[in-house]
């Protein structure tokens, strides 16, 4: 389709274990918000890790701006403009907010540029400036998640991936998280995110991907995914009960 970011035929697993992802794929459009949904253990996190280079691919193709980037290390992905915030524990709890942001620009290796970029982040997220010298581990869950997402922006990436940014947050805070996601996308950054709360995630996304048993079952504009009766029954309806 587009030659921005292509992800297809992804097969991956942990160690010598079974393949957790089996021929998974997703379409990515520049500047849009993509939401991956699916039940627990479907392989959503595994998919993110595989794309981010944290997990070796057994098979599959990932091309970015025409370059084959499958099998690169996480830092090489980062240098090419793809940043990742893993599920939970993405921060350095005993470093201050400012230090965490500095770590976000670790590969820049340029103090001046880094400081000015941190200032930009502070302008966009005033709450972080307020807390600049507080240890990250002592902030509220929502603030921590904001910091984790903001930290990826230091490198001015083209693609950011967030694994369950809403995990463990109160509904009101979850809405704030999605507003932040939207803000990020509005600056032209492509967002890939995983969401447990499928309805909520799809409502805030442009594109929906349904993953189960390590395979891509369905993908399409999120409104279509939301409206599809089979998906409603299997993945959206059951969710309110659970």
């Amino acid at each position, binding site marked *: 389709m587009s030659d921005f970011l292509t992800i297809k035929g992804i097969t991956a697993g942990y160690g010598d274990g079974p393949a957790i992802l089996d021929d998974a794929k997703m379409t990515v459009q520049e500047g849009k918000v993509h939401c991956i949904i699916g039940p627990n253990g479907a392989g959503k996190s595994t998919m993110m890790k595989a794309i981010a280079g944290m997990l070796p691919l057994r098979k599959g193709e990932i091309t970015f701006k025409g370059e084959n980037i499958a099998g690169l290390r996480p830092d090489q992905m980062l240098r090419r403009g793809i940043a990742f915030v893993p599920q939970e524990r993405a921060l350095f709890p005993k470093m201050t907010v400012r*230090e965490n942001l500095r*770590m976000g620009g670790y590969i820049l290796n340029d103090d001046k540029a880094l400081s000015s970029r941190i200032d930009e982040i502070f302008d966009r997220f005033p709450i972080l400036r307020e807390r600049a010298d507080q240890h990250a581990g002592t902030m509220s869950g929502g603030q921590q998640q904001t910091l984790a997402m903001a930290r990826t922006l230091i490198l001015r990436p083209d693609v950011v991936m967030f694994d369950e940014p809403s995990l463990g947050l109160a509904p009101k805070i979850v809405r704030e998280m999605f507003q932040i996601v939207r803000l990020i996308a509005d600056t032209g950054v492509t967002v890939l995110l995983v969401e447990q709360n499928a309805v909520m995630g799809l409502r805030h996304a442009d594109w929906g991907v349904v993953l189960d048993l390590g395979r891509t079952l369905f993908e399409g504009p999120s409104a279509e995914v939301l409206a599809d009766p089979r998906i409603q029954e299997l993945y959206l309806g059951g969710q309110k009960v659970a």
Partner: protein
Amino acid sequence: MEQIIQVAVLGIGLGGVFALMGAGLSLVFGVMRIVNLAHPSLIIGGAYLAYWGFRIYGIDPLIMLPVCALVLAATGVLFYKVFFERDAKSATYSEMTVLLTFAIAMIVEGALGAAFSNTQRVTSPSYATDAFFIGNVFIPKGQLYAGITSIVIIGLLAAFLKFSRLGYAIRATTQNREAAALLGVNVNMVGLMSFAIGIGLAGAAGALTSFVFSFFPAKHWEWVAVLMSLVVMGGMGSILGTVVAAFSLSIVAAFVGTWIGSTWSTMTFFLALFLVLLFRPQGLFGEKPELV
């Protein structure tokens, strides 16, 4: 009152040396999750280096200190390459590495013993046996210099960790290895550097030790338990915690030594360890309730 000040001063002097010994240990544990039981034996190695430097060439141990640090840092790199770079991912890694460091401690002790015999040694620069008085408070110069040097080195270490790029990487790896790797930190390199710095600090501590304590190859067993107590108390991997534990316990130990008997002063460290295990297993500055 004077006696109290007197004892406290002695305690602080020793506390500095123990803090320096413990800091390197804590650093290595933080980054690598390795409890390095060989650390004290390497301190003794550093002490021998300073001792022979003084005996043969008449070099002051304080001047030998950087040499000891560098030689031991190189040893640290060697040990990392030989013993620890391999399968850091296996499940029983941390248990196996403890036993491995135990074996290394025996190797170092045996090698030092074979080379230098089990005679007690002490480096004796003029200040080692000298002292001065402030009022009636008696201050041995050897301990004072060792204490001050330790505090300076720990200060430098703290500044390095706080401000340098490598320092950031070390702290980040300690707190969250996976996230550090994701942000482009070469965690293997950081592991190697932490070994070099940690063991280098052991070398520096050895140079100071050489004129503060008398030593012999098997002496390290006495320190293993003391230093490990400091690290557990400080909250495995928290350098600040280790330093705080070193100073406070050394002062308490100095009082115990004066008022109850010098043989019992080391008991302070062990009892403190058991009290911590009983009431705060995660250590003073630790967060995780259990270390698996």
